[in-house]
């Protein structure tokens, strides 16, 4: 039994429900783009569902799952969560926010997609709901920080357990990222949606959005890395490759995750090319810890294979537990992430970006990264976590094993075709890709059909995950539960808190980097003669 178990499970189940709703919307979208004849098909429903899918998957599923993972990591590694009362307040605030935003979206009054770029204007409840979701997550951040500090005050010189290190880093990234979001939503969009202000400047809003929007991806990714580094090596009988290196990787994410937002705005007017170039360099810097992760997590797999007796150059791959749904999920997530990572390097490439900007390439890209590297890791982790936390063993093992493989196949069909149609020029977020019978649009058609098949396979995989979870918790509980053990490093840790555990110091350095990256360009934008824009609701 760990501290905060109920908090883990409450947040986990909200994530599961959000995922299920979003999966239903997704399959409909993939079919619409292939121009399949559906019983319910209209532009209104399509764009509502794109908004709902984006918000529920990218913001709700991830945030609640990560909050669950945070309570799990601290509860299991530090044996404490201070205080669970605030944990429940966080849960309720986030849940109320989620429900308000979801209702606003489903009512059709807030079809602004999950990027909610003004001057598209949603119903005020949408912004209020999103704000509450974030405020709830801030309370979670406070619980995490407080728990860490209480533990720290009693263990002055000890190195913080690695899983906790990763979660504290996640919290820091989230706070730095949401600072930009708060400026946009509280400073600009909320007063505007309530009618207190007439106009907003879309480029200023986008700049604050992407201050948040890129570190958001590391808020998703670092918790997945926590699973990759601190749980999977032990679960498959291996060792963590290097404790020190992992701490360095996490800290590099704190430093470089935020000052990179302009690579989402390469084609925006109003921002000079010099600042875009600076953000390009910092974006490439953030590739470094991911490259190191690819190397060191695979090294920990190799160690596992060799401990099982493999001796040749590659036979350690064959002896890995490919029939364990948790391992299969993580391994396939990593393969996918490698492909997605190289695509990301192209998105971030200063001038190459223009070939793929806002095409279906982008939707292919983030379905490989957040949609698979992160989501599949989380799904796989749930098979490992559920019996350990609740005592319910995973039932329907065959379906649980089929789930990560079908996800992988579906995602390859969907994402690879999206990448190709993107290069061929197909724009993203279109209800139909026919463009009035245009010749070039006709050349995308067969690929959008493959993409739709991928969408259906993904939907089957989503259903498998939900069925396995539900059937498992309807079964019998076992009194003896498998132990929760974190990965041991190849070389034992020396035991003292080192430079890489000094979160305050690194947060301060990160804040300085953000200031360097944003202070001048934002001041420059604000100094331009600006006219801003009135609100529009073309939906």
């Amino acid at each position: 039994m760990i501290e905060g178990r109920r908090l883990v499970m409450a947040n986990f189940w909200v994530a599961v429900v959000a995922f299920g709703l979003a999966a239903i919307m997704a399959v409909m979208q993939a079919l619409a783009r292939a121009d399949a004849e559906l019983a319910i098909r209209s532009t209104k429903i399509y764009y509502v569902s794109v908004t709902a899918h984006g918000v529920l998957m990218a913001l709700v599923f991830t945030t609640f799952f990560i909050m669950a993972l945070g309570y799990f990591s601290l509860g299991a590694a530090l044996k404490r969560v201070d205080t669970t009362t605030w944990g429940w307040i966080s849960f309720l605030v986030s849940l109320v926010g989620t429900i308000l935003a979801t209702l606003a979206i489903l009512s059709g009054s807030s079809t602004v997609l999950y990027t909610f770029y003004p001057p598209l204007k949603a119903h005020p409840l949408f912004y209020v709901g999103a704000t509450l979701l974030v405020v709830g997550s801030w309370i979670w951040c406070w619980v995490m920080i407080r728990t860490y500090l209480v533990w720290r005050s009693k263990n002055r010189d000890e190195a913080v357990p690695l899983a906790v290190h990763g979660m504290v880093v996640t919290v820091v990234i989230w706070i730095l990222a949401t600072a930009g979001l708060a400026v946009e939503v509280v400073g600009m969009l909320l007063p505007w949606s309530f009618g207190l202000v007439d106009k907003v400047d879309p480029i200023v809003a986008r700049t604050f959005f992407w201050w948040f929007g890129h570190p958001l991806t590391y808020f998703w990714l670092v918790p997945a890395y926590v699973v990759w580094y601190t749980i999977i090596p032990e679960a498959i009988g291996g060792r963590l490759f290097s404790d020190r290196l992992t701490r360095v990787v996490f800290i590099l994410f704190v430093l470089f995750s935020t000052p990179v937002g302009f690579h989402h705005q390469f084609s925006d007017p109003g921002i000079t090319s010099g600042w875009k170039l600076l953000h390009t360099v910092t974006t490439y810097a953030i590739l470094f810890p991911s490259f190191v992760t690819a190397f060191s997590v695979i090294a920990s797999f190799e160690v596992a294979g060799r401990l099982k007796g493999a001796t040749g150059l590659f036979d350690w791959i064959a002896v890995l537990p490919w029939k364990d749904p948790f391992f299969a999920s993580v391994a396939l997530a990593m393969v996918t992430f490698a492909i997605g990572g190289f695509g990301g390097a192209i998105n971030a490439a200063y001038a190459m970006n223009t070939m793929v900007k806002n095409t279906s390439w982008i939707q292919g890209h983030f379905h490989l990264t957040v949609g698979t590297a992160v989501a599949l890791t989380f799904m796989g982790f749930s098979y490992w976590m559920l019996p350990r936390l609740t005592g319910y063993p995973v039932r329907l093992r065959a379906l649980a094993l089929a789930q990560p493989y079908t996800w992988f196949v579906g995602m390859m069909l969907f994402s690879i075709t999206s990448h190709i149609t993107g290069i061929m020029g197909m724009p993203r977020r279109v209800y139909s890709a026919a463009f009035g019978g245009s010749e070039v649009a006709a050349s995308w058609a067969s690929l959008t059909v493959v993409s739709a098949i991928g969408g259906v396979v993904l939907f089957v995989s989503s259903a498998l995950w939900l069925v396995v979870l539900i059937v498992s918790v309807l079964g019998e509980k076992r009194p003896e539960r498998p132990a929760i053990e974190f990965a041991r490093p190849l070389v034992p840790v020396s035991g003292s808190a080192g430079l890489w555990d000094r979160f305050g110091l690194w947060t301060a350095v990160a804040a300085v980097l953000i200031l360097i990256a944003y202070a001048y360009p934002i001041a420059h934008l604000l100094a331009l003669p600006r006219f801003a824009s009135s609100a529009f609701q073309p939906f």
Partner: protein
Amino acid sequence: MWTATFLLVAFVLAIVVSATVSAVHPPSHIETIDPAVVRTESEFSRPGVIEDEHGITVVVLAELYRFAPETIRVPAGRPIRFRVTSPDVLHGFQIVGTNANVVVAPGYVSEVVTTFPEPGEYLIVCNEYCGLSHHLMQAKLVVESTP
């Protein structure tokens, strides 16, 4: 770690060198305009192709849910400057199959300069979600051979 470092340095150098030496930049034009008057009191009230001593400029208005002009004719082999703005929401201006792809925002003028070596027809699409008929917003670019 050394491999990772080497790869990154190579990537960044390739980008920085091409940006500084060959001046390859993404479109980063800085010019603001009042979106309330673009339809009536600016060059965007008369969208179209203009040829003067600066070369060929195409003035495009991107609005819900059309581009004006709907058909653009330009000569092949000469640099073309596109100037685009929006009186309403964000739009995208993407000439499919080329490197002309820019975000269009109300209040700002976006510029992109490109050359089409061969004559032919190109599809222009909006690639930034702008409302219920986003997927219908399109125009045609005809690149004509120069005598």
